[in-house]
């Protein structure tokens, strides 16, 4: 019984990491159709932001809390720069965005290697996140609870922004029918930029959170990019709801497979399940309804 709950929590926790990694992608890939292979490197930028801030702010707790908004801005600005300089030129050619952003990803990795050195670096976890919370006979690591909370907070904020704010309305209008939105006076160009800023910013936040779990190195992003795309594809393109359900389902399924088999086999089984699922529902868990005529 203990093991069951522990694994359920491991699955939820893995799901929250997947969700953080995929959330920004759900915006830029899901809503805008841009295949941004550099998304993982925006996460890396967020992680290194946390590392740099720690050098200036000695208290690990405060530096983590400062790193979250700063990581958002750093990731966001990188995304904005990418959108303005490159992606804006190829909205008509989605496949080219894959190649271009893959190139950008490699450049960013090398840049990180040159600036921070090839070996991995460590971000100290704050004292209030060390140890575990006893709960129903289990020990829930505080870092994992924090990441779970952070993921939920990000989803809620993002959902509220999309639902309630003028920016959110413009984003949804642009996604549903770009031409009509444009005719109605929505600046789709400005909307694109803002969407990219927000999506990439969330990647930066995810990067900060990842410093609590593992190492920070130039290839941090590549570890997560495939999983993030999987979550978005399984969830259904352009749907926040889908991404949330998919992230937690994949997390729990993987944790269950991993417990009953091995880590390597679990990954394979997960892919088998996903392939089978996409045969049945190629549009993903939640499909988008658009007013677009095409």
């Amino acid at each position, binding site marked *: 019984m203990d093991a069951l709950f522990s694994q359920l929590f491991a699955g939820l926790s893995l799901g929250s990491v997947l969700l953080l990694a995929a959330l920004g992608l759900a915006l830029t890939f899901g809503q*805008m159709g841009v295949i941004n292979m550099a998304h993982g490197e925006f996460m890396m930028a967020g992680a290194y932001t946390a590392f740099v801030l720690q050098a200036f702010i000695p208290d690990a707790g405060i530096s983590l809390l400062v790193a979250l908004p700063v990581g958002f801005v750093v990731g966001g600005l990188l995304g904005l720069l990418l959108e303005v300089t490159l992606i804006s030129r190829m909205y008509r050619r989605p496949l080219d965005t894959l190649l271009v952003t893959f190139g950008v990803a490699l450049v960013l990795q090398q840049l990180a290697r040159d600036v921070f050195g090839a070996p991995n670096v460590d971000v100290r976890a704050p004292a209030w996140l060390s140890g*575990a919370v006893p709960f129903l006979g289990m020990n829930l690591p505080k870092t994992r609870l924090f990441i779970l909370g952070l993921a939920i907070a990000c989803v809620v904020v993002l959902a509220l922004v999309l639902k309630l704010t003028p920016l959110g309305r413009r984003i949804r209008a642009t996604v549903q029918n*770009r031409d009509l939105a*444009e005719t109605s006076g929505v600046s789709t160009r400005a909307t694109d930029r803002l969407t990219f800023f927000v999506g990439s910013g969330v990647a930066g936040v995810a990067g900060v959170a990842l410093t609590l779990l593992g190492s920070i190195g130039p290839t941090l992003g590549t*570890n997560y990019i495939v999983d993030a795309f999987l979550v978005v594809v399984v969830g259904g393109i352009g749907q926040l709801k889908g991404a949330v359900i998919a992230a937690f389902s994949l997390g729990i399924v993987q944790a269950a497979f991993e417990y009953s088999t091995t880590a390597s086999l679990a990954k394979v089984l997960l892919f088998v399940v996903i392939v089978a699922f996409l045969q049945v529902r190629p549009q993903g868990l939640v499909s988008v309804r658009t007013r677009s005529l095409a």
Partner: protein
Amino acid sequence: MTTHPLPSRTSRKRALALSAAALAAALTLSACGGARTAAGTDGGTASASGGASCVDTSGDTVKIGFLNSLSGTMAISEQTVRDSLDLAAEEINAAGGVLGKQLEIVAEDGASEPTVFAEKADKLISSDCVAAVFGGWTSSSRKAMLPVFESKNSLLFYPVQYEGLEASKNIFYTGATTNQQIIPGMDYLKEQGKKKVFLVGSDYVFPRTANKIINAYAEANGIEIVGEEYAPLGHTDFATIVNKLKASGADAVFNTLNGDSNVAFFKEYKNVGLTVDATPVVSVSIAEEEVGGIGVDNIVGQLTAWNYYQTVESPENTTFVAAFKAKYGDDRPTSDPMEAAYTSLYLWKGMVEKAESFAVADIQEAADGVSFDAPEGTVTVNGDNHHIAKTAYIGEIGPDGLIYSVWESDGPIEPDPFLEGYDWAEGLS
């Protein structure tokens, strides 16, 4: 203002399918990368064909080759080995060279690809005419180079601890073989009264071979292996594996994880409340330069098994560490593979001087018993299996990130790559 209509739904779908295919291809490639090993022949059975060597010793210099990954995923580690090889060459040249000849270094980049290692080794031997090659790190790179060195009848000096079960008369292994690192690690746990050991490793050849040996050792020594888990290289979510570890009731862990995975593993280990006192972890792939990246806080007090630490107390080591820091900076630690590489160049020098010749056959004949007062302690070449006798150390990671010896073997341990001296190891090789 311009508008950028998004592509129609069908083309989005196509884009999606294509990108999914691209991702799948990338995954497959990376999966194969781990398993890609060129077929190599074990044992020194290849004939010494390949014709007359083109090594030119008529002038004031003699060429030797350095072959390490300076790019790709292994560059982080192998660059440190190259640095210490450069230091050794500089020292030897400053002291008058080998048999009065200055060393001329031909350096190549193996690019973390076994096939590139094989190609570059061939180039170093055949067109640069080097007298010997120093380098390699991964077992797959060594296995790829082995047939080249055997068919061209040249010499490779390989500086990294490895999984054993190999010997070639064209390779000198100056890192530890299993009975100089893994078995002492287990001996130490046994001495500490540990009865239930959990094995965790990366999913590739070294950990799987090492764990096969540990399983046989455990059976013969009354230790129970309560779990054996492998994570794919680069795996960073250890919640499940650490859950299993905790549930297994293990009183010690033997860790053969590589690279980044260690960080995630040790953070998770600490987070779920496991402690060094109750469940110590012995690691065989964490050396001084990795400790900083893992975070000293996460790993302080944990154990490692190696043949050298920067803190080893000997006049030779004091000189080595000082020379290394003077050349590369005070913040650069020294580690076991670096020391083994440094030592390998001096061992080659010793063999050449004993043979009074740069010829491969003469060196092979003179090799047995050549010894060197290395920073790790005195090492001696075993002429039968071309490994070297080394002292084993178990070290504890200190709060300053350096590793301090808590146990050492009674003098150098004779190398036994095929574990012939251990009854329980029968049938492993």
